[in-house]
């Protein structure tokens, strides 16, 4: 049967765009590199690299401390970055935008700080089957400490939350819902607006793990009416070591600080300390100033391309790759939700993900293999792991073709 080839619709000027990412030009194992692991960490455009370089050459000093000009300039750059990010996610005020190390720290902060204030013995925390370990373990830790319990929202074999279960799951004991916006292992885009609406109708706040959503979608925290939203800079073309936790002021005000130290205090005596106001209450110690400035540059870069173009290009890649991969005998895609981001997890009958990944690597193609920090999800599917190809806007249709060709060769060799 003839397979209709999906139209390779070109919405971006790939040649120009790929020049912005110098690393994509390096060879890998004797071939031009095909980088298909942006879901783990994305590559950085020149503008981000230049911003970091410029910051350290011209602007660096500690922030919020010095009376001298340079410290003031560094503080201005740091706070301007916060405003850029607040605008990017449409936060009502930059007080609600906290700099953290990444998604993992954002979730730990909320679990620990919200958990200590609001959880009672017998209370419940609702997560889902498809969570990353970083949206499981922090909740288990605080649940154990406070005598609370984790409840898990089940999924369908396609990798979608079972919506019919929601009503019963969000019972009176649930004190927070913590769900991923997009699954890193399956690509599923969850119906987060509906989840938030339902939770709010019962007075339950919602945390969204935005690690995989922020590189792909326009996120508007006010339109979502989300209580906490967290993401990592390094997955959205910014530096490692920096991330964001957005939190509604009404919650953050009621939560105790997470770390203690400098910057987060108003007045310290040996008897008692009073805390600084938001956002500084949650930013103890010298922050990752260059990271913040670099993250703002990444925001500028993404906006210069535009969410609409990013979405269209990635969707075309996803459809093309899905169709081409399914043409390979014995290949099965794990995660077939109706709403998906450009992430494809797959297995090939009789072959181990590791072997496929190792062979692809030697053909210059970087994919992720294994459980993708979602062991409970893999257990649920009864598989040890998958091969995962994830696409960013800098990936091309040729990248997809190299992947498909590579998988075919690996299968030939191993089967």
């Amino acid at each position, binding site marked *: 049967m003839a397979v209709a080839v999906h139209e390779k619709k070109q919405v971006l000027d790939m040649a120009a765009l790929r020049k912005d990412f110098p690393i994509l030009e390096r060879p890998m194992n004797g071939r031009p590199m095909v980088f298909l692991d942006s879901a783990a960490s994305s590559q950085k455009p020149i503008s981000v690299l230049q911003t970091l370089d410029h910051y350290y050459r011209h602007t660096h000093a500690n922030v919020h401390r010095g009376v001298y000009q340079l410290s003031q300039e560094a503080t201005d750059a740091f706070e301007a970055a916060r405003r850029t990010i607040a605008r990017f996610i449409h936060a009502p005020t930059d007080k609600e935008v906290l700099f953290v190390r990444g998604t993992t720290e954002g979730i730990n902060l909320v679990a620990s700080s919200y958990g200590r204030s609001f959880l009672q013995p017998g209370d419940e925390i609702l997560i889902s089957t498809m969570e990353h370990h970083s949206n499981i373990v922090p909740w288990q830790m605080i649940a154990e400490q406070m005598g609370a319990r984790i409840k898990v929202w089940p999924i369908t074999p396609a990798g979608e939350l079972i919506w019919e279960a929601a009503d019963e799951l969000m019972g009176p004991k649930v004190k927070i819902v913590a769900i991923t916006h997009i699954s890193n292992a399956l690509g599923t885009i969850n119906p987060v607006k509906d989840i938030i609406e339902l939770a709010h109708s019962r007075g339950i706040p919602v945390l969204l793990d935005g690690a995989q959503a922020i590189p792909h979608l326009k996120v508007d925290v006010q339109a979502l009416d989300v209580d906490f939203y967290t993401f990592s800079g390094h997955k959205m073309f910014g530096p490692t070591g920096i991330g964001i936790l957005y939190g509604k002021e009404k919650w953050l005000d009621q939560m105790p600080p997470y770390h203690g130290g400098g910057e987060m205090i108003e007045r310290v005596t040996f008897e008692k300390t009073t805390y600084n106001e938001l956002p500084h209450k949650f930013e103890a110690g010298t922050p990752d100033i260059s990271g913040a400035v670099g993250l703002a540059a990444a925001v500028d870069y993404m906006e210069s391309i535009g969410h609409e173009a990013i979405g269209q290009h990635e969707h075309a890649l996803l459809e093309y790759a899905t169709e081409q991969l399914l043409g390979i005998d014995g290949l099965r895609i794990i995660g077939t939700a109706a709403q998906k981001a450009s992430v494809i997890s797959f297995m090939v009958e009789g072959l181990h993900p590791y072997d496929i990944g190792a062979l692809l690597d030697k053909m210059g193609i970087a994919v992720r293999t294994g459980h993708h920090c979602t062991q409970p999800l893999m257990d649920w599917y009864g598989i040890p792991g998958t091969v995962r190809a994830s696409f960013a806007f800098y990936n091309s249709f040729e990248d997809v073709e190299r992947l498909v060709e590579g998988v075919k060769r690996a299968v030939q*060799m191993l089967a």
Partner: protein
Amino acid sequence: MSEKLKQLYQELILQHHRHPVHFEKREDAGAVIEAYNPICGDRFQLYLDMADEKIARISFYGYGCAISKAATSVLVSQMDGQGVIQAAQTIERFLHALQSTEENPILENELAAFLPARQFPERMQCVTLSWEALKTFLAGY
């Protein structure tokens, strides 16, 4: 594909991967050893019957990459019927050769097939997983 990689995935290894030796679960085995690598999820069970200071019978079952499955298959084929001391020595010799930089350490062909893994440090655990597990078991026997 690189020559190095072709050596790692050489025919002898692929043969063991496709047609592993004594690949069977046994409910009635005298001892069951688990070889598990939490990093990649590979997991094998080794089923043993010990008699007269010997490995009277050995088989395995489980899931892993081609390299770890082949290495377990070769382990099982080498160990079948061996005395405990002799078995421990073979394991030691194999693990030692994998650590050494010697170009051609003296090894049985089936074992020497895994030497190219020395060029792939990240795959070394695949080779040694079941060997280390059996070594621990024999040391406590």
